[in-house]
């Protein structure tokens, strides 16, 4: 045993050295962050390398299918109020290799902080299937669970499979505290061995009796034979749920949104535990993300004022929606890839008081999801509640979207198959504001045209 431990330690030290070296080299050679590759080198040398850091840092793991990236950014910002060094990963490095790379890139800073008697906090976005490995090796102290929605892209995307992967990781670290979205029924299916607190929406009376819209996922109670009822729904299958026989209901919330004052695409005014708060972002899902960060901050002993100061401080972290000018049009680019995401974008458009145009770009390459049928699960019929003035339909699978919008009652469309002509089409739109809702590769192809036209920088 002793020999084994010694061996591991030497191996880890070597891996750390090799990884750091490759990080520096690659960084110099490629002039870029190189988040994944150096980590891969170190990880292949020794997967146990993270264990070396378990007692040197405190680790918070943020996971779930949607909202991880923004929630992680908000959590990092909130916890920086503690005065401790914060280490966080970029989205796209949320697998174990990326996490190794992130930690190793900060190894020197961690050592320095440790020497000064301080333990840095790693605030890590972790892919659902990597939760167990990350939590065990880093001995995570907190899990933040955002939600679990089905992603049509993922062919193994049964939400209960994802749930098992996450709970597997949580159960393997029973001392860590779980901070979960209480409005998501899946997070209360089974008891955890861990301490748990829940956050959610408590902005309406607990008196209604509703069902989720037919086309909603994850609405079965763990009793297996009861469809959930709701006092109210916020979006998708989230809300204050219960079963008619009262055997299953939303757990008590420790932290809650107590009021929603106003929502626009650019700004949300609401109250958390009676404290007024403004988020420079639209979309109910973003309020959930802020609430998760608030809950984490409170569990770390920060007071509400500190947390709100942190969240208000800088709106640059909210960079998920990109805006740019094309001619005299203000164009907002949003990524869409699944029904819950598309419905959130539609909600955002409903909250827009200005008339606008909509450009949809649908591709079906691997990175987009090769099955386009999800567009029929999103509620484009609700666009009738907006000030939508003009539609352009494009992308390699323009026909699918064209028919989708026709069937939603929008026969009047400009169909543009050619990415090269989109910019001119947008310039000719009758409204100042336009949204471009695009799947991943169609967004890249549109970006390439913008770059060609000198309207956007090459990389982003």
């Amino acid at each position: 045993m002793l020999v084994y431990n010694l061996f591991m330690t030497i191996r880890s030290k070597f891996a750390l050295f090799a990884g750091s070296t490759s990080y520096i080299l690659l960084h110099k050679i490629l002039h870029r962050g190189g988040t994944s590759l150096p980590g891969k080198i170190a990880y292949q040398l020794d997967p146990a390398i993270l264990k070396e850091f378990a007692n040197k840092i405190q680790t918070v793991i943020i996971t779930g299918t949607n909202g991880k990236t923004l929630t992680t950014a908000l959590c990092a910002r909130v916890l920086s109020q503690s005065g401790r060094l914060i280490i966080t990963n970029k989205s796209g490095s949320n697998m174990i290799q990326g996490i190794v790379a992130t930690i190793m890139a900060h190894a020197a800073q961690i050592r320095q902080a440790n020497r000064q008697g301080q333990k840095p906090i790693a605030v890590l976005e972790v892919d659902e299937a990597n939760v167990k490995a990350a939590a065990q090796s880093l001995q995570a102290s907190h899990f933040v669970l955002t939600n679990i929605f089905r992603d049509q892209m993922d062919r193994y995307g049964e939400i209960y499979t994802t749930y098992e992967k996450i709970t597997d990781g949580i159960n393997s670290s029973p001392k860590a505290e779980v901070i979960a979205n209480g409005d998501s029924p899946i997070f209360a299916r089974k008891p955890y061995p861990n301490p748990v607190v829940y956050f959610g929406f408590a902005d309406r009376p607990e008196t209604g009796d509703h069902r989720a819209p037919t086309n909603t996922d994850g609405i079965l109670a763990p009793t297996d034979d009861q469809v959930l009822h709701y006092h109210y729904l916020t979006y998708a299958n989230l809300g204050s749920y219960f079963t008619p026989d009262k055997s299953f209901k939303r757990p008590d919330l420790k932290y809650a949104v107590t009021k929603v004052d106003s929502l626009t695409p650019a700004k949300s005014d609401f109250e958390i535990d009676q404290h007024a708060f403004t988020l420079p972002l639209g979309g109910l899902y973003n309020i959930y993300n802020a609430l998760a960060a608030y809950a984490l901050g409170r569990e770390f002993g920060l007071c509400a004022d500190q947390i709100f100061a942190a969240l208000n401080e800088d709106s640059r972290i909210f960079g998920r929606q990109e805006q740019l000018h094309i001619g005299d049009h203000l164009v907002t680019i949003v990524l869409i890839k699944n029904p819950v995401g598309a419905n959130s974008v539609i909600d955002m458009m409903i909250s827009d008081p200005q008339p606008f145009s909509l450009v949809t770009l649908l591709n079906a390459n691997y990175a987009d999801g090769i099955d386009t049928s999800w567009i029929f699960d999103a509620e484009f019929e609700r666009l009738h509640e907006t000030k939508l003035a003009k539609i352009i339909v494009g992308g390699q699978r323009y026909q699918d979207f064209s028919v989708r919008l026709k069937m939603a009652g929008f026969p009047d469309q400009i169909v543009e198959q050619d990415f090269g002509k989109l910019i001119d089409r947008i310039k000719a739109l009758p409204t100042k504001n336009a949204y471009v809702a695009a799947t991943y590769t169609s967004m890249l192809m549109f970006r390439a045209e913008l770059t060609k036209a000198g309207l956007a920088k090459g990389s982003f």
Partner: protein
Amino acid sequence: MTAYKLRIAHLYGDLMNTYGDYGNVIALTYYAKQIGVTVDYHLVSLHDTFKADDYDFVLFGGGQDYEESVTAKDLPGKSAEIKAYIEQGGSLLAVCGGFQLLGRTMEFADGKVINGIGVMSHHTVNLNSPELKDGMRGKRLIGNIEIKNNENGETYHGFENHQGRTFLGEGEKALGHVISGNGNNGDDQTEGVIYRQVYGTYFHGPILTRNGNLAKRILKNALSKRYPEIDWQGKLAAIPTESF
């Protein structure tokens, strides 16, 4: 003028609703509206009563394994009426899991076998079954698919995504023969099923949004049963068909 109605039952629509299955309702509603027919949509789920005479069209979609197993437990209470509905010529579209559950048995990926309601004679095995040819085992059948119905000459386009492999039984015809893609089991070139006025398929896409010819055919069947005096064929021929 009479107000014509199409009464739709969406069987377990809140559980069996993967990959745009609801889009089939959207498509039928789209065509129905253009020929002056109003759609009454009803969700018929767990513990609800299904009565054969209450509906002109039934949609039974696909679900995740968990929801499908829950649905299978509730189905016996409705199977007599579903059987009556089918045998008296009611129109029904079954997709993926719904298609499987109308047959004799189906097998989940983990090897658990459950009974369908057996109103139709096909059966479904999982992707590892010894019933499959070598080389066809172990993989999900995912991708674009095109089939042709040799009787009516129509072709249908869609996207298949299934682990289950279905073999048609006595009295069943395929919806079409595979031109490209895999179909029911990746082996015998059949895709889907036609039995009386029941159409079964593994197509998502969803099938009726991409194949207006089939949407119109199903709509004509359903409306002609309820309003035999009207020339639905003529009315439907006069409006455009979405097909891609």
